[in-house]
């Protein structure tokens, strides 16, 4: 690498070559000024976050740091569903990171180790360093140019800042400031990158006679190409010297200014997104936070009620629009976009708690005012977790929304229909307002008794859930499952009157007091029974019992029925006399799939049934909510707009020759059977619960027993 005629320590770059002392001093002044502004900005932001409520998010720091590093290096979250943007971001990220590290190394070498005589920035290391940074700069620029093309020409709809929660013309509807900022950010970085190369090229040309520079020119291929280009344009060595000085200052000052504005602009996502990823809670939507025992007020009413982590989340959003695109509420034209919710709150926090003093009267985030969140926005959410799942920077929309709903509930503000349902649950422990004693009535029509788990020990305790217990259409599926268990010789029983609504959706509505009561009652009933494991057909009950009951001291091993079926098939306890052969598609229920990663068991069962499964465009973790979650099943969707379930039916109908739309959740059955009719596909295909297909393949004679 190094020419033997050269001393290794001479192969380096002389910093501030030909600078007057005044120039050097001036540059240092700029440098410290920039760092000062940067530090001040960081202080302002941290002071803002500290105005939130401290929480335990920092526990387990080592594992979190490891996760963060893995996520950042792999760019896993950024590649999902937008591979091109992910690659471009990786180019920018790694380019920027390497350039930043490189600059820091120079600083360390020159200002710290150099004076100690420990300089390392020369020789072979220097050459490799040069090459790396040259390529990093290229990656940075390529990435940025792609992003410009994307914003300027490809224009994916998710980058459109139109807000569904405001009418055009409302004072805070206009988000063009963001667009300006996006472009300013891209241009600033691109210019820094380009002037960096120009600087390198002009310096090469200027020092063309210095073999210590020129002989090693191809270690910076891009910079040197620029040097040839400049010379080709007729620039002399002296001219290049002048250009070098001018570019040096321009590049240097711009880069310093960029550092200075980081905490005040979207550039801060470098830190906030990292912080947010580090604080990622893998069960953010599955396990909602408990309310403090002594708390006077419930949930998020004021911006200062937010946890510090959630305040950080507001600043971490990069407006990538992935959540906006995935949100079923937004897709149905309801006034909610998870992105805009986060951004509204960000603006609110910026206005109200970033300043030196805080006006205690201006802190309530709810309302119709500028940058306040409207109740209708919060009530539009189905807590389907599509947003949390896809957010590349681990923002927790669902707990934020539920915390805000808790406050609304405490104020008594909610849809009258929902009120009625909650009152029914308060009075009777179920959302149907049926008498408690009727809970086990569905079992009367079976030709075998279902054990009462309150009275005798069972292997599997079956937690039935409201819909499966009371909804007539679902009761038939419930009986199918009972027959399947009986057929497979599973020892099971139910809690009859002692079971209540599991509370998953009550909690997601934000009625935490009622949830606590339901959870405590159910835990008392479960603890009073003798069993090994719990099984349920209801993914909502599954989620709360598995992930949330432990918060109240209830620890159970619980399975969704699809997992149990899979086990029974594997053990040979379920053998199908016929293969069904239908062409089907499968809807992953939010609470089974995204929430509890139950993607494989239902597919395994379908395969065993000999079904021809064709996946929809959105499946697995990208499944599209039926619209029933978060208590929305207890509220009416506005007429005249396409409901999420109808949207889903259209998607399914695009599968050629589709015969059965398979679901594995009682609420899904209700929602999709409705939507099948309203979307106009009745007669074209049918909606079935997986249990019904299993019963069919087992040739369990429903008619005979149901009629008996």
């Amino acid at each position, binding site marked *: 690498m190094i020419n033997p005629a050269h001393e290794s320590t001479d192969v380096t770059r002389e910093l501030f070559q030909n600078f007057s002392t005044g120039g050097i001093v001036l540059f240092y002044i700029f440098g410290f000024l920039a760092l000062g502004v940067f530090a001040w900005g960081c202080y302002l932001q941290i002071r803002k976050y500290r105005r939130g409520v401290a929480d335990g998010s920092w526990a387990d720091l080592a594992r979190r740091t490891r996760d963060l590093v893995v996520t950042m290096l792999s760019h896993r979250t950024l590649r999902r569903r937008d591979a091109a943007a992910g690659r471009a971001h990786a180019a920018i990220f790694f380019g920027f990171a390497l350039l930043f590290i490189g600059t820091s190394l120079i600083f360390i070498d020159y200002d710290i180790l150099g004076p100690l005589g420990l300089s390392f920035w020369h020789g072979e290391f220097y050459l490799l360093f040069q090459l790396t940074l040259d390529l990093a700069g290229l990656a940075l620029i390529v990435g940025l140019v792609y992003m410009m093309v994307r914003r300027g020409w490809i224009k994916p709809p998710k980058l459109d800042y139109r807000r569904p929660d405001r009418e055009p013309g409302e004072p805070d509807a206009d988000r063009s400031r963001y667009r300006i900022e996006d472009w300013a950010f891209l241009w600033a970085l691109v210019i820094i990158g380009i002037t960096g190369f120009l600087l390198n090229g002009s310096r090469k040309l200027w020092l063309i006679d210095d073999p210590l520079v020129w002989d090693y020119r191809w270690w910076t291929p891009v910079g040197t190409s620029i040097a040839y280009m400049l010379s080709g344009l007729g620039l002399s060595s002296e001219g290049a010297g002048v250009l070098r000085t001018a570019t040096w200052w321009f590049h240097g000052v711009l880069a310093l200014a960029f550092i200075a504005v980081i905490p005040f602009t979207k550039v801060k996502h470098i830190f906030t997104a990292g912080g947010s990823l580090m604080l990622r809670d893998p069960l953010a939507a599955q396990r909602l936070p408990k309310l403090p025992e002594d708390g006077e007020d419930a949930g998020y009413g004021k911006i200062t009620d937010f946890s510090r982590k959630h305040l950080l989340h507001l600043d971490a959003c990069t407006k990538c629009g992935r959540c906006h695109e995935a949100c079923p509420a937004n897709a149905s034209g309801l006034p909610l976009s998870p992105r805009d919710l986060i951004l509204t709150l960000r603006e609110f926090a910026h206005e109200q708690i970033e300043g030196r003093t805080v006006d205690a009267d201006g802190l309530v985030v709810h309302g119709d005012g500028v940058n306040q969140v409207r109740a209708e926005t919060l009530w539009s959410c189905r807590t389907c977790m599509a947003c949390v799942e896809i957010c590349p920077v681990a923002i927790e929309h669902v707990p934020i929304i539920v915390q805000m709903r808790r406050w609304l509930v405490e104020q008594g503000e909610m849809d009258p229909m929902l009120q009625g349902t909650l009152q029914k649950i*308060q009075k009777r422990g179920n959302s149907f307002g049926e*008498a408690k004693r009727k809970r086990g009535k569905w079992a009367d029509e079976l030709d075998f008794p279902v054990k009462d788990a309150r009275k005798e020990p069972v292997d599997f305790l079956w937690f039935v859930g409201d819909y499966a217990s009371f909804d007539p259409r679902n009761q038939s599926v419930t009986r199918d499952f009972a027959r399947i268990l009986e057929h497979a010789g599973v020892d099971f029983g139910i809690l009859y009157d002692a079971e209540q609504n599991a509370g998953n959706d009550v909690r997601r509505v934000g009625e935490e007091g009622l949830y606590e009561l339901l959870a405590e009652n159910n835990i008392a009933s479960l603890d009073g029974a003798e069993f090994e494991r719990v099984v349920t057909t209801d993914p909502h009950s599954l989620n709360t019992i598995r992930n949330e009951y432990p918060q109240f001291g209830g620890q159970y091993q619980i399975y969704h029925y699809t997992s149990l079926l899979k086990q029974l098939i594997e053990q040979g306890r379920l053998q199908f006399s016929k293969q069904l052969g239908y062409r089907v598609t499968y809807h992953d229920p939010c609470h089974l799939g995204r929430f509890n990663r139950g993607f494989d068991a239902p597919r395994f069962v379908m395969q065993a049934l000999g079904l021809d499964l064709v996946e929809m465009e959105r499946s697995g973790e990208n499944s599209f909510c039926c619209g029933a979650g978060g208590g929305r099943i207890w509220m009416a969707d506005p007429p005249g707009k396409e409901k999420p379930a109808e949207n889903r039916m259209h998607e399914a109908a695009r599968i050629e020759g589709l015969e059965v739309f398979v679901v594995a959740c009682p609420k899904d059955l209700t929602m999709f059977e409705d939507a099948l009719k309203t979307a106009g596909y009745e007669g074209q295909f049918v909606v079935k619960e997986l249990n019904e297909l299993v019963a069919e393949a087992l040739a369990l004679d429903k008619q005979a027993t149901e009629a008996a």
Partner: protein
Amino acid sequence: MKILVPVKQAALVEDDFELRDDGRDVDPDFVDLQLNEWDDYSLETALQLKESHDGIEVVAVTVGDDDAEDALRTCLAKGADRAIRVWDDELGDADPVVIARVLAAVAQRETPDLVLAGTQSSDLGFSATGVAMATFMGWPHAAVVVALDYSPGAATATVERELEGGLRQRLEIDCPAVLTIQLGINTPRYASLRGIKQARSLPVEELTPEDLGLEAQDVGEQACGARVRKMYLPEKGQAEMIEGTPAQQAERIAAIVKEVMGG
């Protein structure tokens, strides 16, 4: 100023129920209790007035046994300032007029500027209590109120009443007055369970008719003008769902007509 809101813990009967052995009421095993639906609206009216004006006190009052306390807790959870429960076992069979007499005595003690009651109760539906109360107090009253325009301290209030056939009557009423509020006048707020729990630590004033200066003969059984003799389900009328194709349905209808007409 003060608004008095008389409320009732009403019975919510299950779909399939049995009657009490004496046949005069539904077996309590088949009954849930909850704040009378109409009272949700009258309380909300009072609370909204309280929220839009300074210095209004909302006092909820009920005549009922221990079980009725829940109704008051709900009112307190929603934002009532005080709660009063009047009871004596003598009142067990009280008719609406006796209840109204007790409530009027409470009003005399509390001297409210306005009484907002529900138009009727969701279980027994006499629609009498509020009106009778006004009579005892000698106050003007308006029933089935669906809109209210009132500023605290004003000598009159403007109210709208709902009449048959969708007709509305607007009237000006001298205050103090008793208004009985109709469903739909507003959207009542929800009482969260946490709120109700927190309201458990708030005091409920407990009084007997005696404390209110009422004599046994004013409230006992002999004071009731009406007594329940029996509660029962009338024989179901004849109804049949006719199913099948239009032709089959027509055939069945023809058969029924023939059968009934004896043709």
